[in-house]
């Protein structure tokens, strides 16, 4: 039976705990708030269209005889191999959907806290700035992981299931690791990219503009430099081109640009490292020290 108390302040009779995942409540709240946004659920559902199409592709690839009338001439496209997974994980539509979802659910992660001066509320708790950033990073990682790692692993499992044997797995024993590491690479990049943009303004609309402008202007810059210099190294200026280069290396297929893939890998990693220090500096500098 519930205790009947007198009106007034009462002490809490529990014990505060030392948690190892102190950032988790921030991540959970961020994910919940993202789903509360208008149109987010619809876009989230739409972002699984490629995964569903690829799943159908996996099914058809195992039943080519049955679908001969449909799949005539498309046998090569429907061949499930590492390139198939590379195509899924580095296709423009997936990157676009990640950007779109992060524009809606991720742009305000730090920007809104700056705008509403909420960072001091977080940091007045037993949290470090790193805990705060991990909490925010978890939100982006969750969504990027849901669009990349989860569908790719499910596609792999479907392939094994539909083929009815482990032959595919034995043919490419490294594929699962490639999927995991490349997805982790994408999660890291998009987390740094979105959080950096979010920490550069108090206005989420500017952050959204910044996310799309940076991503697509880098691709435009690649095109312009290529036209001027005719050098494949212009690919290093482009975010999507760099991601595709790394994807090709991870899945052991030919890189789309005649540039060593590790240049792209280093560029993305350097960007992530730089972002981390910039974000950490911003989180300390704007809200707490005035």
């Amino acid at each position, binding site marked *: 039976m519930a205790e009947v108390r007198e009106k*007034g*302040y*009462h*002490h*809490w009779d*529990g014990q*505060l*705990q*030392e*948690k190892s995942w*102190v950032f988790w*409540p*921030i991540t959970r*709240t961020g994910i919940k*708030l993202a789903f*509360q*946004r208008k149109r987010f659920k619809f876009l989230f559902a739409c972002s699984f269209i490629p995964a569903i199409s690829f799943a159908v592709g996996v099914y058809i690839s195992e039943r080519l005889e049955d679908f001969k009338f449909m799949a005539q001439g498309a046998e090569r496209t429907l061949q499930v191999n590492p390139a198939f997974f590379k195509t899924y994980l580095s296709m423009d539509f997936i990157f676009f959907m990640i950007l779109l979802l992060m524009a809606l659910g991720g742009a*305000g992660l730090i920007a*809104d*806290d700056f*705008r*509403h*001066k*909420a960072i*001091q*509320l*977080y*940091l*007045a*708790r*037993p*949290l*470090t700035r790193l805990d705060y950033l991990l909490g925010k990073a978890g939100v982006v990682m969750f969504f990027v992981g849901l669009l990349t790692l989860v569908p790719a692993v499910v596609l792999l499992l479907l392939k094994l299931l539909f083929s009815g044997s482990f032959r595919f797995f034995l043919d490419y024993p490294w594929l699962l690791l490639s999927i995991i590491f490349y997805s982790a690479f994408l999660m890291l990049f998009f987390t740094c990219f979105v959080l950096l943009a979010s920490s550069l303004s108090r206005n989420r609309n500017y952050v959204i503009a910044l996310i799309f402008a940076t991503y697509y202007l880098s691709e435009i810059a690649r095109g312009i430099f290529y036209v001027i210099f005719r050098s494949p190294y212009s690919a290093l200026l482009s975010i999507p081109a760099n991601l595709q280069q790394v994807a090709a290396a991870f899945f052991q297929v030919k890189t789309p640009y005649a540039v060593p893939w590790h240049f792209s890998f280093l560029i993305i990693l350097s960007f992530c490292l730089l972002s981390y220090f910039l974000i950490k500096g911003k989180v300390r500098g704007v809200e*707490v*020290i*005035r």
Partner: protein
Amino acid sequence: MSIELQNIHFSYGRVKALNGVSLSIGEGATGLLGPNGAGKSTLLKIMLGFLTPAEGQGKVLGYDVRTEQKFIRRLVGYMPEDECFIPGMDAVTFTALMGELSGMPRQEAMKRAHEVLFYVGLGESRYRLIDTYSAGMKQRLKLAQALVHDPRLLFLDEPTSNLDPTGRQEILELIGEVASIRDIRVLLSSHILADIELICDRVVIINHGEIAAVGRIEDLKMINYQLYELKIKGELDGFRKELEAAGCRLEETEDRLVKIYTPPDFDHKKIFVSAARNQVQVRHFIRSRTSLEDLFARVVGVD
């Protein structure tokens, strides 16, 4: 002692915010009083571990402000001056999140969030989005999030700013009730003297980054000076000069009331002697109760 600071120095670039602040604060409610820019908020942020002092040492609830900030923040509730919240959340989710981040188990935090929101008077509107709250409600919510984890020490930074008189009265009543609880110490930073006088029994007056006065409000009022209020007829100038030479300070209000602040051991008969010598008629003479406002004006050196 709940707070012990020794020779704390802090600068924002070239601007010196705190210059050798040393103080000890024990039980009960203490007011941190000072004009705008005196260094009150900086001092709170140093005690919370947001800022690291350039020099000096300090302990809050026995934990070092330089190295044990996490332990301090676990036991301290902080109500910031700014209007701050997480947009898109309702009050109960927000308060529970703050409790959980302090180390409360999730379900306990939610239960406690309901309790403190009822306590601060937001029980009926606890499921409303914070974005739609009025300034007074947001102020109550800030108090709720500071109380949710049942802190041992409460830092309140300008808790009545931006409030109408009714809202101010209500929030002061809540703070007063919390401050009266034996094992919760309150440090109330404000430039509103009446708030401090109502809630606190001790005061730390800070000015230009230095401690100007510290102690029990009643003691400070008694020890530092005595206050007499006079109505006079005649020229004030000579009378003023003579008393000021004797260590007194005179103020004349708009309604011609003369306030004389005298040193503690000053014989009030000297006022009459001086008045007679300067041909000033004393038509009204009363020993006044000194207010915190008078104390503040005296130590900070403003009228």
